[in-house]
């Protein structure tokens, strides 16, 4: 009896234990990124922790070109997020709330970019830009165009999920109370969909900010943060790169956790 109970306890918890191990595997590199941001390496090609220093944190921009590349990534990320979120939200509304011909083709067109390997998307854009005679002028604009393209589908899917879960009768109720269509949209529908739009925008920003492969094909001479990391990987990674990596992690985690807390407080 005791043995059986012990067996059941193990069976009950073994899965949780495995899950925690897997989470440990997922966090091992994060731990190393944080650790290496305090590293004072003797040589660039050395990837082991050698000596502790604060200097990477007190002066992250000491590494030539790195902060400029972070700013470039932020600019592109911001613009790509705005465009992709607006265009994608409009498409999501059309898909959920309107009737139109060619629905299946539209859904396929939204789905395809998500199912295409990045290397194919990046190289086909380069083939197009070259054929159009634009190969010499690639740079900020071509990265932006590409990022809007691959962020768009993710925005559509995210906003659509929120919109489809919404009871359309809220709007009907508003209209019954003499709200016109415009008022019903801005006072009822939009606030309800807004969390989905915010989630989509955050997703778009992180996809754009972190993109390497598509950018690598279409960047011209513009250096984004991932391009900077890639370029310096050949010569040896400056430890300041890990400072940026750690900062990104902390900011994003703080954003997600605080939004979770706010939601929980509102729910009470």
């Amino acid at each position: 009896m005791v043995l059986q109970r012990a067996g059941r306890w193990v069976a009950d918890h073994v899965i949780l234990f495995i899950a925690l191990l897997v989470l440990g595997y997922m966090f091992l590199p994060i731990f190393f990124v944080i650790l290496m941001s305090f590293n004072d390496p003797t040589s660039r090609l050395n990837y082991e922790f050698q000596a502790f220093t604060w200097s990477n944190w007190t002066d992250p921009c000491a590494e030539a070109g790195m902060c400029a590349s972070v700013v470039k990534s932020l600019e592109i990320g911001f613009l790509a997020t705005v465009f992709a979120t607006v265009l994608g939200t409009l498409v999501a509304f059309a898909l959920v709330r309107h009737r139109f011909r060619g629905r299946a083709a539209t859904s396929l067109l939204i789905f395809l970019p998500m199912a295409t390997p990045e290397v194919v998307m990046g190289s086909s854009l380069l083939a197009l830009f070259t054929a159009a005679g634009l190969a010499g002028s690639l740079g900020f604009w071509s990265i932006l165009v590409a990022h809007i393209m691959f962020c768009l589908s993710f925005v559509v899917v995210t906003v659509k999920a929120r919109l489809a879960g919404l009871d359309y009768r809220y709007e009907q109720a508003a209209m019954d109370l003499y709200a016109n269509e415009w008022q019903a949209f801005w006072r009822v529908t939009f606030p309800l969909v807004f969390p989905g739009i915010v989630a989509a925008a955050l997703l778009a920003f992180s996809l754009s900010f972190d993109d390497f492969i598509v950018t690598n094909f279409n960047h011209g001479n513009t250096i984004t943060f991932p391009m900077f990391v890639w370029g310096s990987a050949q010569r040896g990674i400056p430890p300041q790169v890990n400072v940026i990596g750690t900062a990104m992690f902390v900011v994003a985690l703080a954003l997600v956790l605080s939004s979770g807390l706010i939601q929980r407080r509102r729910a009470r």
Partner: protein
Amino acid sequence: MSVAQFGGGVAAGEPGQAEAEQAKRRGRTGYLLLLPGILWLFVFFIIPTIQLAATALYDPNGSLDTGYAMTFAFGNYIDALTQYQEQFVRSFLYAGIATVFCLLLGYPLAYAIAFKSGRWKNLMLVLVIAPFFTSFLVRTLAWKSILSDNGFIVETLKTLSLIPEDGRLLATPIAVVTGLTYNFLPFMVLPLYASLEKMDPRLIEAGKDLYANGFTSFRKITLPLSMPGVVAGTLLTFIPAAGDYINSELLGTPQQRMIGNVIDNLFLVQLDYPAAAASSVLLMLAIVCLVLFYVRRAGTEDLL
């Protein structure tokens, strides 16, 4: 951040679904809303793909300076396939192994989050996506430190005599597959979680009542019900992994080059556009064929 979206689709059959369908508006507004986004995808996704397919048929003797002539050189495909056969096979092999590992690691994690995490559910979900918060390249480079020759993992394996005294992990297929598994694991966990979460736990209780043991009820109830998640997760892992070349470049050597490295190198270093485009199209075609075959075998066509 909503997580269920990764599983795609929203439960149908809510009250008033048919009415909601009725309430969909007709008329021009729908087309106007669609137009800018669809146009963008058409110009910067469909047309480039067509251009890529065209570039793959250009005369291989041309160059960027002299321009390429369209000669419908289907031989480019055969050349690419014979010349880069090794990298093609390696890409699908590494991606396949990484996908299997992701499934083996991701399933227990998704299961634990869905059924065993209690009040920690949301926190665990945040933890699953948290590695995404930092840069892909920086994370992959961290594996260089973790697997380094004097790092604790290599030292431990040496102490246990699991690898020889001069053995290493960096610059081996093991490092590349470890990196691929790590980088795409969240894409596996989230759809698995989304499908497990929808499952009614009472079904397992019912199975137990009918004298099914833990293993049987998993095999007959949980696993079949989570199949859509398994299919979505394996595709979301396999497709990007097969095209990835960051892991093989940073954690491997030229002996671990994948097809992505080849395409990148042909386009950006050797400037051999027809061969590069042909390899790119072949990768796309191979993935589409595999996906269609797989989805049909798994009996989940309606996912697409």
